[in-house]
C-alpha cells in the first residue's frame, strides 16, 4: 500500500468538496474492492474520502410506494431489514448472497453500484427493479446509470446518497456464483410491476449488467417459466474467462432466468 491521507467529512457537501479539491482522491464506502487493490499497489490514491462518518447516509425507509436505501447502508442491513424483507424480499435475499459475512458487514450498496463491477450482484437489482439513484446533484434512473465495465453515469465529484427502489408485484434473483470469488458468474434478476417486466443479467455480459428484452417480451404474454422455455441469449457479447466460456454463460442465462421467473411467479 502506498501512503495516503484519509479524510472523514461529516457532510456530503464536505465530501464533495474534498473530491474536487484533492488530487487523486477516492471515496471510501466499505472498501472491499478499493482496499485490496491498494494493498496490491494496483491503486494508489493520494486521498481517501471516508464516507463512514457522514450523517444520514445509511438506513432504509418506506416513502410512499418506494423503499429508499441510504448509500452507506451495509449489505447485512439490507439483508436483515424487516421492512425490506416484507416489501422486496428478493433484494434482501440478494444482499444476503454477496461475498461473505465480512464483506456484508462492511460493504455498502452505494459503494457497490458506484464501482459497477460486472460480476457484482447489486447492479442486477438496481436495474432489475428500475431503481433511481439519487446523488448530491441529481436523480439518475437505473437505465441511464450503468455504462459498461466499472463505468457509471457518475461525475467526478458526484456522490450517491440514496437508492430508491419502487415496490414491485413480483421479483426474484437467482445467482450462480463463481466458485472461488463468490461474485456472480451469472446472476439473473426478474421483476414484474404492473405491465413492466424486467429481466436483468449480471456477471455474464462482456459489457456489464444488461436487460434481456427478448425474455421480457416473451414474459409479457404470461409471466411464467414456460414462456421463456428454449430461449437463450447469443454467446456473442458474453464475457469469457477460465470460470465460464461465453457459451456456458449464455446457456446459464436461460437456465437461471427460468428459475428466477419460477421463483417469482
Amino acid at each position: 500500500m502506498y501512503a495516503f491521507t484519509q479524510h472523514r467529512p461529516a457532510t456530503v457537501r464536505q465530501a464533495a468538496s474534498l473530491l474536487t479539491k484533492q488530487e487523486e482522491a477516492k471515496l471510501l464506502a466499505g472498501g472491499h474492492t478499493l482496499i485490496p487493490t491498494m494493498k496490491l499497489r494496483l491503486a494508489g490514491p493520494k486521498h481517501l474520502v471516508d464516507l463512514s462518518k457522514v450523517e444520514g447516509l445509511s438506513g432504509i425507509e418506506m416513502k410512499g410506494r418506494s423503499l429508499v436505501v441510504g448509500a452507506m447502508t451495509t449489505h447485512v442491513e439490507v439483508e436483515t431489514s424487516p421492512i425490506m424483507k416484507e416489501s422486496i424480499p428478493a433484494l434482501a435475499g440478494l444482499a444476503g448472497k454477496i461475498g461473505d459475512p465480512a464483506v456484508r458487514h462492511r460493504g455498502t450498496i452505494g459503494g457497490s453500484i458506484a464501482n459497477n463491477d460486472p460480476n457484482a450482484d447489486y447492479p442486477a437489482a438496481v436495474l432489475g427493479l428500475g431503481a433511481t439513484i439519487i446523488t448530491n446533484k441529481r436523480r439518475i434512473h437505473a437505465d441511464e446509470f450503468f455504462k459498461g465495465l466499472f463505468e457509471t453515469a457518475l461525475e467526478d465529484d458526484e456522490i450517491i446518497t440514496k437508492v430508491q427502489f419502487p415496490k414491485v408485484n413480483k421479483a426474484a434473483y437467482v445467482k450462480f456464483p463463481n466458485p472461488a470469488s463468490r461474485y456472480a458468474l451469472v446472476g439473473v434478476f426478474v421483476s414484474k410491476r404492473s405491465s413492466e417486466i424486467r429481466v436483468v443479467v449480471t456477471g455474464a455480459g462482456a459489457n456489464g449488467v444488461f436487460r434481456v428484452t427478448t425474455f421480457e417480451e416473451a414474459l409479457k404474454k404470461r409471466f411464467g417459466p414456460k414462456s421463456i422455455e428454449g430461449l437463450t441469449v447469443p454467446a456473442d457479447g458474453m464475457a469469457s474467462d477460465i470460470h465460464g466460456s461465453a457459451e456456458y454463460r449464455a446457456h446459464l442465462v436461460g437456465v437461471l432466468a427460468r428459475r428466477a421467473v419460477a421463483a417469482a411467479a
Partner: protein
Amino acid sequence: MSATGIGAAVRRKEDQRFVTGKGHYTDDVSRPGQCHAYFLRSPHAHAKIKNIDSEAAAAMPGVLAVLTGADLAADKIGNLICGWMITSKDGSQMKMAPHPAIAHGKANYVGDPVAVVVAETLPQAKDAAEKVKVDYDLLPALCDPAKAQDQGAPQIHEVAPRNTIYQWHLGDAKAVEAAFKTARHVTKLDFINNRLVPNAIEPRAAIGEYDAGSESLTLWNTTQNPHVARLVMSAFVGLAPEHKLRVIAPDVGGGFGSKIFIYPEEVVCLWAARKIGRPIKWVAERSEAFLTDAHGRDHVTHAEMAFDPDGKVTGLRVKTVANLGAYMSTFSSSVPTYLYGTLLSGQYEIPAIYCEVDAVYTNTVPVDAYRGAGRPEATFVVERLIEVGGRQMGVDPADLRQKNFIKTFPHQTPVIMIYDAGDYHASLKKALELADYAGLAKRKRESVRHDKLRGIGFSTYIEACGIAPSQAVGSLGCGVGLWESAEVRVNPTGTVEVLTGCHQHGQGHETTFAQVVSERLGIPLENVSVVHGDTDKVQFGMGTYGSRSGAVGISAIVKALDKIEAKAKKVAAHMLEAAEGDIVFEDGKFTVAGTDKSAAWGEVALNAYIAHKFAGQELEPGLKEGAFYDPTNFTFPAGCHICEVEVDPQTGESEIVAWTAVDDFGTVVNPMIVEGQVHGGIAQGVGQALLEGAIYDKDGQLVTGSLMDYCMPRAQDLPALKVEMTKTAAPSNPLGIKGCGEAGAIAAPVAVINAITDAIGTEDLPMPATPQAVWRALQKANDRRTAA
C-alpha cells in the same frame, strides 16, 4: 487403555493456544535490530536478465542493501538441490539444473527472485524495489508439460535437452506386453492430474540472524523439517558449518508438504543477515505464496488395464509425463517415481505392471510433494481404470474390486512394495453397508424425479506411509536416511520431556506423542511435554511428511521408553533391595513380584537423580534415553471411500450428497485427531476433484494467482462425512501404527470423479470437475449421441 493413553479421544493440548491467539509463529518473532526483505520477482516466465540497475533503489530512504544473483555468486553461495537421485532407463542420471537462490543470468518462471531489497521497513523495501531497473530479454515460455519434449520447444536448461530431466521406468514391460496380447478386455484412459497450489493458512516466512560473537547463524523458518533444512543449507548451500547454524521452526500453520522444501528466501535471509549484520525478516504475501510455494501433482497420463474373461486384472501399463517446474525442488524427483509407480498395484493382485515416467522442466514454479505426493496420482490411475473397466464390462464396480483384491499377506507386488498386512474386503464391506449401496437404485430414481442425476463412486485406495526404511530408500536414490529420533528426558519430579525429530504443523503431536508416554509410564498427560522444531534442542530428526510421524516418530519414542523403563527398573531394584529381574512395572508403579514392596514412578525418578541408593560404579545417575528408529518396511494404510453425488444437468453443478470412509490405519492413538485428519484429507481431495486447478496461460502467467480465481474447498462443499475404521495392525512397528495424514487426499479425488461420471454417463471428464466442465462433458456426450 488408560483415560489419556493410546486409543483415547483426548482433546488436543495445543488447541488452547492456537484458538486463543497465543501460538508463536515465525512472524510473531521479532529480533532486536530486525530489518525487512522484499523480493523483486521476475514478471516474465522465461527471460534473459541482461542488466540490473539498482543504483536508484539503493539510494532510497531506509534501504540497507539491494542484492542480486551476481552478489550471491560472488559470495560463492551454493545452489539449491534436489536430494533424490533418479536414474533413467538408459542408466543416465537425472539432469539437475543449477538453482541459484536468486536468478542469475536468466529467470525461469514468473516469481523467480531476481533481486532482494533489504530496508528498515517493509514499505521502504517495496518502494525501493519499484526503482530497481531490470533489463529483460524475453524468451518464449513453455508451460504445458505435454509439449515440453517437442522438437522446437523452448529449451529451459542447457543440461536437459528437450527439457527432459529423466525417463524412468519400473516393472516388466515384456510381461505386460504378453498380458495385453491375451487380454479379453482392455480399458484405456487419458487424463491430467491437475496442478494444485498448496495454500497453507500461514504463508512461508523466514528470519535470518547472524551473531558475530559466536560466528553463528540462526534461522526462524516455517519448515516441516528443520534439521534437513540445516543440513542442506550447510552442506550444499554452504551458508555455515552445521554446528554454527541453528534452525528453529516454531509453531507452523500448515504445510501439506509445501514446507518440506528448502526455498530461496530462507537462504537469502541468512546470507544477507551476515552480509549486512542485521536480522532480516521476510514473510510471504498470499500472492507470493501462489507464485512461489512448490505446487503439487501436474501429471499427464495415458494408462491401460488388461482384464481376463473372468474380470481379473492381468496387466497394467502407465505412461506419465510429470511436470517438475522450472527447477528441481528438494524431493521433487521422488514424487512421480518411487512414490507413484510403486503404488500402481493398488489393493489388487496384478501380475504384471509397467510404468514409464518422463519428468520435464517447464517455465512454472517448481512442483514437489503435496499431501499424498505421488500416491493420489497412482490411486487415480488404478481406481479410474478399474471403475471404468467394470462399467465397460458390465460388472458391478464393488464386485470387480473384490474379485481382484489381494487376500493373503505378505504380498509382493510387481512394483517393489511388499504389503505386510491388510483386509481390503473388510473395509469395502463395511463401507457398502454404511453407504447403503443396496438402496442406490431407489435413490437414483428419486433424483431423476427432481431433475437431478445421481451417481456413486468408489475408491479402494492404498498408500505407502511410514516413510521410510533408510536402506530401502537409499538403494532407490534417496540422499538421506528416513529413520526418526527421540529422546525421553525424565525430570527428578517425574515429569517428562519428549524430544522428537518430527515436526508438528497441525497434526497434534503434542497430544498424541504425550498420550503414548502417559500410557507407558502411567503419568498424567499434562506431565508430559513434547519438544520439537529446534536444532539446538533436538539433536537430529527427519521431520514430518509422508504420514511418518506416528509410524516412525512414535516408534522412536517407544524405543526410548523401552530404555527408560529398563533403567528405571534398575533404579527401583536398588531402592526396593530386590533383584532387577523381579521388578514389575505397571500403572506407573514398580513392585517386587510376589511382595507388597513398591515404589511410585515419581520416587524412582527422584532416586535416579539423587542417586542415594546406588553408587556411581553400579549405575549411572539420571534418567534420560535416546533412540533412533529405522523402520523395516513402509506401512500400508488402505481403505474404501464411497462418494455419492447429485448433478444438476442444466448447470453442471455437482453436489456431494454422501461420503463414506472406512480406513484401516492400524493402531490409532487418538481417534478424534485421526478423524480430523480424514476430514481434512477428504476436503483437500474434494478440492482437487471439484474446485482447484492452477492454470498458467501460454505466456507463463499464473491466471489462478489469488483466492479470487483459485477455489479452495469450503465447509459447504462437503456433506456430513461418515468416517469409520477397520484395523489390521502394521507388523513392522511396535505399536502397529500405519499413518493417516494423507489418506483422505489420496482416496478422495477419484471417488468424486467416479461418482460424477457414473451420474452423467460419460467418462470424459477433467479435474477439477467444475460445473462448466460437467456441462461440457454432458454436451459432448449429447453431441456424440446425436451424431450416432
